[in-house]
């Protein structure tokens, strides 16, 4: 019972805590700051700061990377094929690695 009335009392005090809220005065330098920010905003920004161009640059970079990786993989495959061909020609083996059968080499002992 006593707790209830204490809670009620605290609740009322909290609900009324903004009754004597004071007005907060403005900043006397606000206009000067705003002038400064407007000046900064009016200055032409570098082209690299334009979001659309940033996106374009990122996409181009990504594209160049993908192209480089794909052509690198292709070059590696061609190089490997050539190597296999050269080795198989020199040793008189079949030219394709798919046809190499290690367990059916004639005269192998």
């Amino acid at each position, binding site marked *: 019972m006593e707790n209830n009335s204490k809670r009620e009392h605290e609740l009322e005090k909290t609900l009324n805590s903004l009754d004597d809220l004071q007005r*907060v005065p403005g900043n006397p330098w606000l206009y000067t700051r705003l002038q400064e920010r407007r000046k900064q905003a009016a200055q032409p920004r570098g082209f690299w700061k334009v979001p659309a161009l940033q996106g374009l640059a990122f996409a181009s970079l990504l594209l160049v990377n993908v192209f480089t990786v794909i052509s690198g993989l292709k070059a590696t495959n061609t190089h490997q094929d050539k190597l296999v061909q050269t080795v198989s020609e020199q040793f008189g083996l079949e030219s394709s690695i798919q046809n190499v059968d290690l367990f059916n080499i004639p005269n192998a002992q």
Partner: protein
Amino acid sequence: MSDEKQFIQSLKKGEAAAFQRLVEESQERVLNTCLGFVPNLQDAEDLTQEVFLEAFRSAQGFREESSVQTWLYRIAINKSLELLRHRKRKKRWAFLTSLDAVKDADGSQHFQHPGVLLENEERAELFFNHLARLPENQRTAFVLHKVEGLSHREIGEVMQRNVSAVESLIHRAKKQLRESLKTWYEQNLI
């Protein structure tokens, strides 16, 4: 031409003297409104700057359907609510970044309202924490009424609602605040 009309025309033309007058006459009102939503002086001052910069940018498009003060109140409310929404989103995703981000995203940790008397600070902080849980429209009506002391008709102009809708919003806000605080006291005050 009346002084107000002339003032609006000067604002629309982008005259520096008109903007200076706007800032000097309205900054206290804007700052205190922002403090009603974001009870932290630094945040409210930053918001006040954003409000006036937005006013500078959009002055040309001001349609004169309301007073300049009503227009400024709308900008201040929108900017404050935008900041709060941004913080909420940031808090929601903060677990992906770091513990510091969680701390920063929670505005309630940095209560600093210079208009609150020192002996009332703890209670006011609790009050603002519960005020932050109200729906945006109830919160807006309540802040304009309690903090800015606007009449129901003036709040209606700012929120573009009729007087009875404003009364209902304030009534519901008070009821919800009372219930929310009552539950808090039941859980925390033995």
